[in-house]
Each structure stands twice: as C-alpha cells, then as structure tokens.
C-alpha cells in the first residue's frame, strides 16, 4: 500500500474544494441551527439557488458573472423569506418539515423537463465559469507545496473559497459576541423567555434564516464554479445531512466548528477510500468480500460508524463543551 499518497491525498482533501463547500454551507447552518436553534433541513436548496443563480444567469441569459452572484444571493434571501414567513411563528418542527420539502421542490424543479431551457434539466448547466476564472491573477502552472499543490484554476477557486470562509467566520465571531448574538442564543434556549423580555423573536429567527441561507448561497457559488458545472442531484437531501454531520462533528455554536468539521470529514473520507482501495489491491481484503467499486459506499458506512462513536463518546463535537451539553438534560 502506498501510504505516502494515501496521506497526501487526505491532506489535500482537508483543504480541498469539498471542504470549502461544506465549511461554508455548515457555517450558514451554524447560524440557523447552532446559534438560533432553527431546524433547517433544506440547506441544500440555498446552496442550489446560489449555484443556479450563477449558472443560469451566465450560461442561459448571457449576463456577466457578477450579476449571477447577485441573483444567487437575492434568490437565497427570497427563498428564506418564503420559507420563514409562514413557518417561523409555528413550532420548531414545522420549519424542519417545510424546509426539507421545499428543498426537494427546488431540486425537482431544477431537473424538471419544463424548465430544461433555464436549468438544463437533469444534465444541469456547464460553461458559465470562465467569467470567474478570467478574474484570476494566477497564470503559472501550479501553486503550493507538498501535498497541497494545485493547478492555477484550482488554486484560484480555493483561494477565493477560503477567503470567503475566513470572512464568514470572522463575521460569525463578531455578531455572536454582540447583543444580537445573545438574543439569538436566548431564542435557542427558550423563545418564550426571550419574548417576555421584549424581543421580537420572529424577526430574529427570520434574520438568522436569511443570513444562514445567504451563506449557503456562497457555498453554492464555490460548488458551481469549482466544478464548472451544476447538476440538480448534487443538491439533494444527502448534501444537507452531510452538512449537519460536518457541523455536529466540529461542534455546533462554535465559530470554527464547521470549518474543522468539514476538513476532518473530507480528510477521513479520503483516507478510508485510500486505505480500502489499497487493501483490496494488496489482497488484504478478499475480492469476494468487497470490490473497488464498492469502496465509495463502504467508506460512508465507516464514516457513519465513526459518527455514532463520536456521538456516544464525544457528543459535543470536537470544539464543544461537555459541561454545556450536560445542562440540556435538566
């Protein structure tokens, strides 16, 4: 087994495109679920709206890249308002049901035949990312060192992605230590208590939903531009559940939780993938038991197992405070 390349692949995955995408999506979810306690099970739809905002505006309407970004952000805001206005007055579980259903509606609309002219149907859209790569000041062959060596295009999208991650994390840190963040955390604990103290709980929840959704759209931009294509089935419920996994892995309501969670999630997936493939080709795992084509599924099973163990032995995530979690039981 080539341990060198297995570890170098894992190290690259820890800062790679998937990590950036899920870190951003989870940063948004962290504001909604981690701080405000909103059960948004439709984060994939916000990401899809960001991705399709850019893709449709550039590839179909022929508008500049910047317009696509603005449309993506606006779509996320509108979608958050559409979801939140009717459901945020109700109990928390209604939002969960509404968001998971609405996210599927978005995905199914994107892949529907009727809208093929706008969304590309189940094939999605391509050829919209050049406007973004034209902005790149990087012209060399490759950048970085050791395992972290990427092509100029990959470096550019990763650079923009990580700058976005840093800015969003900084923003989260700034607002969560402010009185605004305090109200949000209060709502997570008990919204009636916060209401009795004269705060407009509904308005705060709506703000959190919109804010988290807009950050989700940022993840969508990186998703679409990094792959230079959009495909509707990338934005299914699995995306949302992986985002929750990333968030819980790192620790909810922690600024760095989503980022570290995403890095570990993708590094571990790459590691298990490499190890399983290596073991099969070396004959350590008999081919009767598992073939290389099954590795993709098995590694997710292993990640699931790891998550169960994490929830049992470290339910607060990597950054969480166990004492804080224990208070919940009271």
């Amino acid at each position, binding site marked *: 087994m080539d341990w060198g390349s297995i570890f170098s692949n894992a190290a690259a995955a820890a800062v790679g495109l998937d990590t950036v995408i899920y870190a951003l999506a989870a940063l948004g979810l962290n504001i909604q679920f981690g701080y405000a306690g909103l059960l948004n099970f439709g984060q994939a739809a916000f990401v899809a709206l960001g991705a399709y905002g850019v893709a449709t505006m550039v590839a179909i309407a022929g508008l500049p890249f910047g317009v696509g970004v603005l449309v993506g952000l606006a779509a996320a805001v509108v979608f958050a308002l559409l979801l939140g206005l009717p459901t945020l007055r109700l109990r928390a579980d209604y939002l969960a049901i509404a968001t998971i259903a609405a996210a599927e509606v978005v995905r199914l609309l994107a892949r529907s035949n009727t809208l093929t002219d706008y969304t590309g149907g189940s094939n999605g859209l391509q050829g919209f990312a050049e406007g973004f790569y034209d902005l790149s000041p990087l012209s060399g062959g490759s950048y970085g060192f050791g395992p972290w060596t990427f092509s100029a295009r990959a470096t550019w999208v990763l650079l923009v992605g990580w700058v976005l991650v840093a800015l969003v994390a900084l923003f989260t840190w700034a607002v969560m230590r402010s009185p*605004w*963040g305090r109200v949000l955390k*209060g709502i997570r604990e008990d919204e009636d*208590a916060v209401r*009795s103290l004269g705060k407009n709980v509904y308005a705060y929840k709506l703000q959190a939903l919109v804010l988290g959704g807009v950050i989700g759209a940022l993840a969508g931009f990186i998703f679409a531009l990094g792959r230079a294509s959009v495909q509707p089935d990338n934005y299914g419920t699995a995306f949302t559940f992986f985002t929750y996994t990333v968030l819980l892995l790192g620790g909810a309501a922690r600024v760095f939780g989503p980022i570290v969670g995403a890095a570990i999630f993708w590094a571990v997936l790459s590691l298990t993938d490499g190890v399983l493939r290596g073991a099969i080709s070396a004959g350590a795992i008999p081919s009767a038991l598992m073939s290389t084509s099954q590795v993709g599924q098995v590694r997710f099973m292993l990640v699931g197992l790891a998550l169960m163990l994490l929830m049992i032995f470290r339910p607060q995530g990597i950054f969480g405070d166990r004492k804080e979690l224990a208070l919940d039981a*009271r």
Partner: protein
Amino acid sequence: MPADENAPAPGPEAAAQSDAHGATAIGTDDAAGPRKLAATLALADVPRVPGAPKPDPVLVADGVVRRFGGLTAVDVEHVEIQRGVITALIGPNGAGKTTFFNLLTGFDRPDEGSWTFEGSSLARVPAHRVARRGMVRTFQLTKALSRLSVLQNMLLGATGQRGESLLRAVLPTLWRRQEEANTQRAHELLRRFKLDAKASDFAGSLSGGQRKLLEMARALMMEPRMVMLDEPMAGVNPALTQSLLSHVKDLREQGMTVLFVEHDMDMVRDISDWVIVMAQGRVVAEGPPEAVMADPAVIDAYLGGHHDASLADLDETAVEAEVDAEIEKEHR
C-alpha cells in the same frame, strides 16, 4: 382594616384617589414600609365584590373570554388591578389563572374581550410589545436560559439595546458603552439578589430557587412598571422562600405593581394587599387577604361544597341517620 361593607362608598373613585396620591407622596423613596401603608389606605374603601372598581387602576380587563373547544377556561367580566399594590390571583387548580395571565401578557389570544394597561389597549398586542410597554412576566416553570451565563441572562433583559440590531452588531464601538452600563446595572441587581458570585456560571447550573431569583432579577433589568409573577414559590427550597418574599415586597416599595399567581396561602396572606379569587374561569371574590380567606364562597370554591366533612364522614353519618330512622320506625 375593618371592612365597611354596609356603608355605601360615596364617590369611591374620587375620594380614594386623592387618598392614594396623598399616601404615595408620603411613601416616596422611603425604606420598606410606607408603600404597604399607602396600598392599604388606597384599598380601604374598595368594595369587596368581584370586579370592584379601584381608585387608581393600572390594569383593567373587560369581558375577557378564552375557550378551548367546548371548555371556557377564562370568562372574566371585569377586573381592575390597583397601581403600586401587590395583588394575588388565587384559585383552585384549573381555575384559569395562568391562562388569564397568558392572555393579559400577550402569550395567548382571547376569543373576546379588551384590556388596558396604563390606559392604552393591549388587545392583539404581541407579547414582546406588552413587555416593552412595562408589563413583564415570569413563568410557572422557570425559564432560565440554561446555556447562557447568569450575566448574559441578565443582559438579555436590558431594553433598547443598540447592539441588538444586526447592522450595528458588527461594530462594537456603536454599542460597547451601553453594554458596559447594562453590565454594571446587571451586577448591581445580581448583588441585590445574592447571585453575584454566580455571574459567570451557566444559568443551567443554578438551583430551582436561584433560577426563580434570576428570572425575577432579569425581569427587573427591563425596569418594568408592572411585574406579573406566575407561581413565584413553586419548587423553591424553603430556605430561599423568605428571601424571595422580601424581594417581592421590595418591588412594591420601589413603586411597581405586582400581580402574582400562587397556591401557597401563607405567602398570599403574608405579602398581598389585595386578593382576587378565580374559580372555573370567573372572578368569584375580591378583597384584602384576611377577608377573602374567611369568605365562605372562597372556601367553597377551593374545597368544594362539603369542605367541612370528609367524604367518609359524610357517608357514615348519612347511613347512620338512615339506620336510626328505620329503627325508630320499627320501634314505633
């Protein structure tokens, strides 16, 4: 205060109003006591009937009805709460006290009715606006925000915070000074409630009684004019009871109006100036604590019609009487 029920109060409104104003003037900014006297004086001429008009009502409710399906939980024709007084709302389980509380504070909507606080209507006003107008409530099941520190709990109570707007939140220079002033006030209140040593602990680590204290202190951060306490003594360790009682009395001494729901009759007798009794959703009696607790209608409402005989006794005597009658008949 002897009850003068027979004498018709000639223009009770005007007479007692001047009375009340005179008395509060004496009591202003004095230490414990004077407000109690003022409260007693102000209520002296109020007739002891349900819905009695008060000389200086801060809260007036009219025809407030709340139905849950076929059940009428609250049906209050008219009730007034005197300003600057501690009023207890008592009644048996299921009398509609907490529901009435929820209606008054905007946490529930009535099917009919109107009510005013300080002269302005509160019907259809959402709960957070009711609180901002100066009427703050606490809850029967204490709502300490567990995973926030005691100090953060307190700061959440401060009103008009500039940093609570998302746009200003990112620029601490816009709210830091106000935050410092609020923090100082929070520490002062925590000292008063003897919670200052716990300021940086999670609120979830406090005992039941300490949570009640925190909830009350947090409500005071809003500088309310009326405080509504829903069972302030429920689940409180007896050692803390006296402390809580004195804090409630203290609210009156600071010029606040207090309305509280309570089951503990000793507490009601000890601290309230006026008692309103609810049964089956209606106000059935009103008056000073001693008078109300001696009222047969109240005792009936609480204990049912045959409160003076246990069910077993009742059956026995009835059976005995029947048997005696039969024996007599036979012997005749």
